[in-house]
């Protein structure tokens, strides 16, 4: 990953996606306006509008004329599927690579993952994936 390089509008779009994923934003709910975004985060409203346009393109948000932006039906599942498809490449593979560099046997990593040691708060999942 090459984080930090991401333009602000991508970061805003990502924040909205995360809020939809973790349930902070429910489907059908209205999201903050570009104006609110601009003044809250001290950014140009065009930057916020760009983030919204991208999410509209993806079908995550939709516009209701004169009312504002709303979370689309099915957005949560769609984002979940997308994040899951990237989970191994973006989250697990770097762990494996780091373990290799440090000379930690993969078996130790697996043991850790399957042990009862609390790994910190994990967000509740609507359905269980068969990896743990």
């Amino acid at each position: 990953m090459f984080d930090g390089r991401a333009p602000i509008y991508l970061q805003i779009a990502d924040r909205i996606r995360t809020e939809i994923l973790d349930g902070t934003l429910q489907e059908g709910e209205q999201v903050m306006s570009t104006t609110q975004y601009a003044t809250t985060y001290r950014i140009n409203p065009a930057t916020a509008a760009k983030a919204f346009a991208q999410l509209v393109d993806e079908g995550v948000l939709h516009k209701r004329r004169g009312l504002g932006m709303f979370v689309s039906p099915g957005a949560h599942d769609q984002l979940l599927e997308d994040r899951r498809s990237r989970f191994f490449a973006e989250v697990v593979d770097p762990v494996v690579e780091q373990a290799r560099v440090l000379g930690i046997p993969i078996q130790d990593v697996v043991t850790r993952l399957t042990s009862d040691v609390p790994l910190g708060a994990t967000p509740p999942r609507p359905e269980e994936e068969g990896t743990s």
Partner: protein
Amino acid sequence: MSTTTGSTTTGSTSMGVELRGLTVRFGSTTALDAVDLTIPAGTVCGLLGRNGSGKTTMLSVLAAFRRPTAGAVLVDGEDPWENPRVLQDVCLVRESGDVLADLPMRENLAYVAGARPRFDADVAGALMDRFELDPAKRPDRLSRGQRSAFGVVVGLASRTALTLLDEVHLGMDAPSRYAFYDALLEEYVAHPRTIVLSSHLIDEVQRLLETVVILHRGGVLLTEDAETLRGRGVSVTGPAEAVEEFTAGHQVLSRQQLGRTVQAMIHGEVPPEAAARAVASGLELGPVDLQDLFVHLTAEGPR
């Protein structure tokens, strides 16, 4: 809610700018050299450049404080020179203030209210409070930062369709600057207009901007969408050979070597596949700050 004066306002609340071959010479010095530039109406544009790059000259021409030596200046499609329709809706705030220094700020504001059809006294009052300015005080009794803040009050409360703020925030302390950024955004989203913000310090203002124009030695070095520009620079760190291979064909702005590790800054777009390949091969890619990019692009000497 808004307190306007008797004169009527015509035209749009945002005026764009078009410069064609704009040249300004002072004696043997060429301050602006055949500049072509478009500033779209309704945007917040950052006019960036080092000291002496021509920023103030350009803004002075836009506000018809100065006549160009050659070329065309169009504000809302018309030459601003001796053009009352355009000029009542153009406000240039310079660091020097351009106010009646020996009259209380209250009287200054009354004067501005008479000259600016869209002036809003309530907004001016709220901004005076925000910057903790006492209307009974005279501008010439203020600190540099307070004088800048008063300039901002005049600039924003005038609600002119073209508002030119020339390095106004430089003299302010940090709390005042943040108050200025907040006020600027609030005013802009509530009453969209064209705002040109000039500066050589761009760290703090970069997020406020939609477009960026970089002036260098009297010419336009680049003009670009602010977000695009930010994505234009990449810093790459890793083993020397790998970095050389990655940067081949790109404009390298800087290069530092520490032992076998090289860090280079390039100007240009890196396609996602190339970035992914680079990361996979052990290179570290990082962001380039707009300020860094600006410093390198406008550095003296050959590039």
